[in-house]
């Protein structure tokens, strides 16, 4: 089974300060997962909470209408339905959604997040149950405590409740893996699985700029980092930015523009040539990180 680095050694090194984590698949490839930011987790939760409350309100309205329609005779059945429905919403909403292949609640789906096992293994049902059972302690207990007895508790207790709440709410900010207590207990974490589109290869455009030839010195002015910035500039193709970048590069490599040479065509040709040069060196095991990398 795949192993994340943290679980592999008995005395794991401190996790890195960035949110990128190593996940080696059984095939031996590192997937370089990115953990969800605390802000994304919070937004996902708020979305889910909004959905739960919305459904609860809608359910209550429907039940009240049903009560009116049956003129109060169906009272008992409706009460059962309502109580059971709200229980399912509160306790099973997260569990049932995270048991699906996407392993994410609607809120997480919207933000492109999913739950994964921290050791890189299979995400099991008991892990999902465990991480969500903890929500009882993290969210519902303090909430129900504060709201149910709001009128007859004194300030000290209210303050203690708020502090209790705060410990759990801010818990993810105080560990590098952004774990909430439920994640900690269940051995899970939340990772980003954005759905990226495969965009056009910027070097595969029909070539009408073959006339532009750059010297080796001109191509050695930049490294991979600059190449990828240039890639983004070309993808967006904002006329002003293109002009500015073209002027900058021409200045740096000492290029004099010939008549009728467009900024876009120049950048296109330079991108292609630079990428060819850097990729050629990559094949020989030399990756030039950026323009300061002289090695």
């Amino acid at each position: 089974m795949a192993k994340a680095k943290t679980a592999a050694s008995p005395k794991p090194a401190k996790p890195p300060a960035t949110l990128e984590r190593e996940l080696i698949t059984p095939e031996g490839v590192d997937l370089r997962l990115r953990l969800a930011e605390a802000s994304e987790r919070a937004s996902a939760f708020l979305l889910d909470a909004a959905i739960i409350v919305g459904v609860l309100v809608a359910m209550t309205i429907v039940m009240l209408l049903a009560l009116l329609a049956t003129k109060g005779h169906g009272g008992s059945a409706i009460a059962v339905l309502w109580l059971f429905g709200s229980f399912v919403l509160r306790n099973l909403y997260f569990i049932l959604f995270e048991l699906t292949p996407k392993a994410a609640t609607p809120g997480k789906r919207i933000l492109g997040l999913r739950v994964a096992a921290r050791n890189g293994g299979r995400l099991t049902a008991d892990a999902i149950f465990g991480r969500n059972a903890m929500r009882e302690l993290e969210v519902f207990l303090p909430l129900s405590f504060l709201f149910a007895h709001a009128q007859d508790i004194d300030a000290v207790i209210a303050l203690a409740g708020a502090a209790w709440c705060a410990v759990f709410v801010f818990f993810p900010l105080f560990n590098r893996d952004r774990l909430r207590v439920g994640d900690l207990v269940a051995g899970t974490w939340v990772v980003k699985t954005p759905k990226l589109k495969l965009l056009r290869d910027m070097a595969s455009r029909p070539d009408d700029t073959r006339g532009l030839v750059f010297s080796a010195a001109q191509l050695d002015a930049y490294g991979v980092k600059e190449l990828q910035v240039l890639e983004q500039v070309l993808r967006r193709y904002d006329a002003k930015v293109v002009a500015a970048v073209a002027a900058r590069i021409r200045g740096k490599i000492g290029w004099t523009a010939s008549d009728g040479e467009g900024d876009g065509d120049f950048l296109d040709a330079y991108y292609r040539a630079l990428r060819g040069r850097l990729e050629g060196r990559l094949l020989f095991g030399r990756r030039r990180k950026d323009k300061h990398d002289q090695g």
Partner: protein
Amino acid sequence: MAELRLKSSRFRAEREADWLKLEKLLTRAETRSASALSDDELIALPVLYRSALSSLSVARATSLDGNLVDYLESLSARAYFFVYGTRTSLVGRIGRFFAHDWPAAARSTWRETLVCAALMLMGIVLAYVMVNQDPAWFQSFVPGQLVEGRGPDASTEQLRQTLFDTHHQNTAQAMLPAFATFLFTNNAGVGLMAFALGFAFGLPTAILEFYNGCTLGAFLAVFISHGLGYEAGGWLMIHGVTELTATVLAGAAGMKIGWAVAFPGDRTRLDAAAAEGRKAATLMAGVLVMLFCAGILEGIGRQMIQDTVVRYAIAATTGVFWLVYLYAPRRAPKAMEGGRG
């Protein structure tokens, strides 16, 4: 494709179709389920996944197209989660849970279960003795909302009425199912809390179990002192056997985590908590099922059955049932779910 001068562009042109095919299959499998794919597609998917992984390795080593590498990373991760993700159906999982996982989890926590049971028993005995000596203690053991005319000042007749609901039976019966549901959701909350609090080294869980016992002991003291011990036992045990077992198991699950956090052994505290937490969570799922049964027994059974002997009979049956179901030796399950790809 003569115009593709770069090796990385040629590489991409060769493999692109496979990636897009994999992406399409994944999108379909994710939005619906694995059953939305045909057999051929299901067989093709792991192959496409591995070819995407190899493309990713090649792209990282040879291509400087930023979007391409990012795309392959996200595609491979999605495919990885699908290929190595959960395999069994929801129904299969639930079946396995009842047949094996839940009893196994209960058996493996027998030590914590005994500790919790002992704590609760201690609470019962302590509160019983104290209330017997000075009824004033009753108030400090029982929260006001639970009293409902069962305090030490109540007359024997009043107490009897709380056990055998006779005079407003009709209205009561109509609302029984609602009452049962309410009790279930309420108890489930308490059980989940006992579990969740175990995280703090199990101490709050222990206190909760003990306090639960105290409440019970105080009630018993009042009823027994009025000569209603036998009837009160039936009133309590018809659902109490199930409910108290569930509470004890919930506490045991919490303690298991607390113990692992306090004494992780060779593992790190985090790993220990995670490993035990998952086992304990299985047990908690079972506890919820038990509390559901208890809610039905309490809300419906206790109000419909007014005869003490029958109440005791049901209590004994449920007790034997849980004992046999959870702790009787059984064959090991046939095989672990699915392969690992």
